[in-house]
């Protein structure tokens, strides 16, 4: 189990190159054009001319390529190995979807083209929206949100629109979120103008029903919930939860970050959720790209469809259209119609798996997570909080609290040491209700041997913690750089957020 990441000590672009070098040559202006327009400076008002050339580095094409290849070699992706970040669903990103997303027949389309010239992509988007509605058990789906949190924002805005049309928006100002919720939930609720009310989880790791009952009131706008929750448990009282919220006059919002284990098994719409967002870049296999782009479509039940952003894609039996005539629409949440190239990949993914394949991927993701629960059960210092017997779904959360008490080795240390074994770390310190949390989501992508390798690494790290803790405390050793000073990076005295800032306050190396 040896691993050594490339370590190039690659200089930043600004320290490279030489005056006069060129990385790309643009088409030249034709003589006829030049003659007709005359002196270029007359085309720009005097007050608006750039006087000093942009201070960009001057590099040749091979230098640029080499620089970024070096950088890529100092980066770990899901193609490098297990990437068990909990709630992030780092599954394999099929290569065929990449080649389809790079087709010029998609790349070269402007969003304002005449509908007759874009029927193919409209059909793909229309069909995908229907499929997502079917998978989530919702009535209509909007593909516009560019990310999960963007979907959450849309969802909470839809709640607001619904309240407004019922004349209840002054009254219902509280949005309830569990203490185990993803951070985006309370942030989205606040962004849409709601007051966030936190409801605690019970001893079983699920929402405390009694606490929920005492939380809801005439002020309740709704509840944001992910199911399975961030401990990997299915909220088995979901029917009662839905009833409590609906009886209180609120709406139920589904955070789809954890939908993967339920594909073809159960649907949020059937559980009583009114608004559902899904993460295309999680459940539907599109690449995360180091943080994006993703896509976060939102599905709603019938009564809410009239509030969805414009345009809606419609089909008249022959042609697909963009329909802007939706008087009750909330308007727009972004420039055009969503991250189309990402959505196309999801379309191809569903086509590649079909219903049977999607269900299989859900089942195997759950199998893999529970397999790891078993494999890690007797690692010294690592414990599994909450019900030992109850099956997890897509992810499991372990605690390194005992290990820390015994040896001083924290969840963060374990995570850093995992990097040394050529694995990615799990999500750490989340959910907040687990002390020294290590949240592990293996997904269906990885074969048994890779899961075994992960379990073996955790074993070794535990042994190291009890016998030679220095090696763990000082990890990572085999990555491009050793442990970074993240505090220093945000300290006002040393903070450099761009090359400009860096130049102004040269950082001391020690």
């Amino acid at each position, binding site marked *: 189990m040896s691993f050594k990441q490339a370590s190039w000590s690659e200089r930043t672009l600004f320290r490279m190159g030489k005056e006069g070098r060129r990385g790309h040559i643009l088409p030249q202006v034709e003589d006829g054009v030049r003659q007709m327009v005359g002196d270029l400076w007359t085309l720009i008002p005097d007050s608006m001319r750039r006087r000093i050339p942009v201070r960009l580095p001057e590099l040749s094409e091979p230098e640029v390529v080499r620089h970024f290849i070096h950088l890529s070699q100092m980066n770990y992706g899901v193609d490098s190995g297990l990437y068990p970040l909990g709630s992030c669903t*780092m599954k394999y990103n099929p290569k065929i979807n990449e080649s389809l997303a790079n087709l010029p027949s998609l790349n070269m389309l402007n969003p304002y*083209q005449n509908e007759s010239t874009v029927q193919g992509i409209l059909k793909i988007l229309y069909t995908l929206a229907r499929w997502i509605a079917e998978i989530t058990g919702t009535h209509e789906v909007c593909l516009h949100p560019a990310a999960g949190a963007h979907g959450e924002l849309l969802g909470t805005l839809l709640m607001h629109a619904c309240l407004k049309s019922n004349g209840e928006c002054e009254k219902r100002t509280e949005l309830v979120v569990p203490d185990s919720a993803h951070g985006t939930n309370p942030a989205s609720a606040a962004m849409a103008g709601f007051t966030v009310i936190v409801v605690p989880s019970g001893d079983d790791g699920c929402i405390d029903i009694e606490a929920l009952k005492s939380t809801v009131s005439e002020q309740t706008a709704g509840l944001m919930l992910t199911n399975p929750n961030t401990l990997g448990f299915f909220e088995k009282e979901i029917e009662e939860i839905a009833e409590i919220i609906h009886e209180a006059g609120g709406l139920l919002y589904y955070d789809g970050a954890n939908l993967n284990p339920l594909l073809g098994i159960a649907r949020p719409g059937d559980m009583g959720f009114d608004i559902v967002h899904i993460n295309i870049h999680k459940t539907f296999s599109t690449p995360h790209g180091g943080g994006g782009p993703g896509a976060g479509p939102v599905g709603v039940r019938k009564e809410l469809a009239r509030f969805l952003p414009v345009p809606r894609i419609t089909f008249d039996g022959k042609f697909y259209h963009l329909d802007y005539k939706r008087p009750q629409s909330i308007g727009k949440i972004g420039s055009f119609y969503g991250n*189309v190239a990402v959505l196309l990949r999801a379309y191809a993914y569903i086509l590649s798996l079909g219903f049977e394949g999607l269900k*299989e991927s859900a089942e195997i993701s759950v199998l893999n997570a529970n397999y790891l629960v078993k494999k890690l059960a007797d690692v010294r210092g690592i414990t599994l909080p909450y019900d030992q017997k109850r099956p997890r779904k897509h992810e499991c959360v372990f605690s390194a609290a005992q290990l820390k008490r015994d040896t001083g080795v924290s969840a963060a240390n374990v995570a850093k040491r995992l990097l040394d074994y050529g694995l990615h770390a799990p999500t750490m310190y989340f959910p907040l209700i687990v002390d020294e949390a290590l949240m592990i989501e293996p997904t269906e992508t990885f074969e048994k041997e890779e899961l075994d390798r992960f379990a073996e690494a955790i074993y070794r790290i535990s042994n190291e913690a009890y016998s030679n803790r220095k090696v763990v405390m000082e990890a990572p050793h085999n990555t491009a750089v050793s442990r970074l000073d993240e505090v220093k990076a945000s300290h006002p005295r040393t903070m450099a*957020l761009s090359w400009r800032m860096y130049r102004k306050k040269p950082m001391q190396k020690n």
Partner: protein
Amino acid sequence: MTIHVHNYIPNSVPGTKRQMMQTIGITNIEELYADIPAALRLKKRLDLPKEGLPEFEVKKHVEKLLSTSKTCDSMPVFLGAGCWPHYIPAVVKEIVERSEFLTSYTPYQPETSQGMLQALFEYQSLICELVGMDVANSSMYDWASALGEAARMASRITKRREILVPEIIHPDRLATLKVYAEPAGIQIKQLGYDSEIGQLDMDSLEKRISTNTAAVYIENPSYLGFIESQAEEIQAQTHKAGALFIVGVDPTSLGILKPPGEYGADIVIGEGQPLGNAMNYGGPLLGIMACREDNNLIRQMPGRIIGITTTLDGTQEGFCMVLQTREQHIRREKATSNICTNEALCAVASCVYLALLGPQGMKELGETVISRANYAIKVLSQIEGIKTPVFRSHHFKEFTVNFDPAGKDTKTVNTSLLQRNIHGGKDISNEFPALGQTALYCVTETHSKSDIDQLAEALTEILEAKR
């Protein structure tokens, strides 16, 4: 035939499945779902393709659907309006398809993600140079949402609740701004324009600006393509009222136009798509957001920011995410925004693009675009029945073409153009009724002289037909 073993799911092999179930102590995967109430279990097969297709068939299927597209590869297309056709150097595509970048997550573990972190830091740095600012975040979703976030940011900083924006603004950008602003109690007020030259009406600004104004927002070049030349004066008025000055840009103009940092912008936003990202029917895009080095601004900035640091032992420089206490995963409902997943890979594409073009390339890009666009204006304005541009101002890459003198409506003209295998500009007659039958045309370095000449010929024919 059912494909029992899927190529994306290694443990779907029955033997492996059995072995793993044995380890867990179950005999059927169903046992892992036993806690889901029976009433909630799906009893039917969903209305999806039943079984997956082999890769070859998926490829054929999607290619066939998209083959009906007509693109700017098969005809000259004069559309822009926030999503512009620019050539993407082959190097850019090569780099963003590197799977170490493509398949990585948000760099939460910096030591194993230095490549992405450095590339994003370089993106931030290059954007700062281009727009003349000190700090840039590592991306927003797009220009429209960046505007919404910038308005909220300005309101938080000034504790004021009014944003002044020009009447000449992309209507969808304005619609997005309204949706973002309303829940924060922010009012949007619009500023008029000079009907001859399109420039912002300074009297309107003077009348509307007050101690309630959180920010004044302008776009340069404007939505209708002309260069706003009173930026300095607008800046002075804005700052006099204690408001922030937000400027929206098309970054391809900044090789030849004065960067907003030089005319007093506090926050710069814009659309980064034209810097190395394909149009893709409108997404993914790349929201630019930058600001001055001012702690009040930086602390209120939404989104992820990458900074330089050193290793703990101080021997090596490295990169990591900074100021995470602004963000939702730490601050939850008190975060500056809910944004998490952003457009990182598009930012990397723009980083590579700017590294390739360099100062000379960006200058030549601007020169080529402004030359070709002004050539088009000159050629089209010679056609009887056309008024172009509507506003007597300097235009960069987009410009208005009015068909009122010919008594034709834009829709008809565009239909006739399409019959001649040319896609005309965006019909903005409904967006700006005061401008009559008008289309917004876009010309970049990808439009050759012959494309423009072909357009002129076609328009001459179409407009003559009636007379």
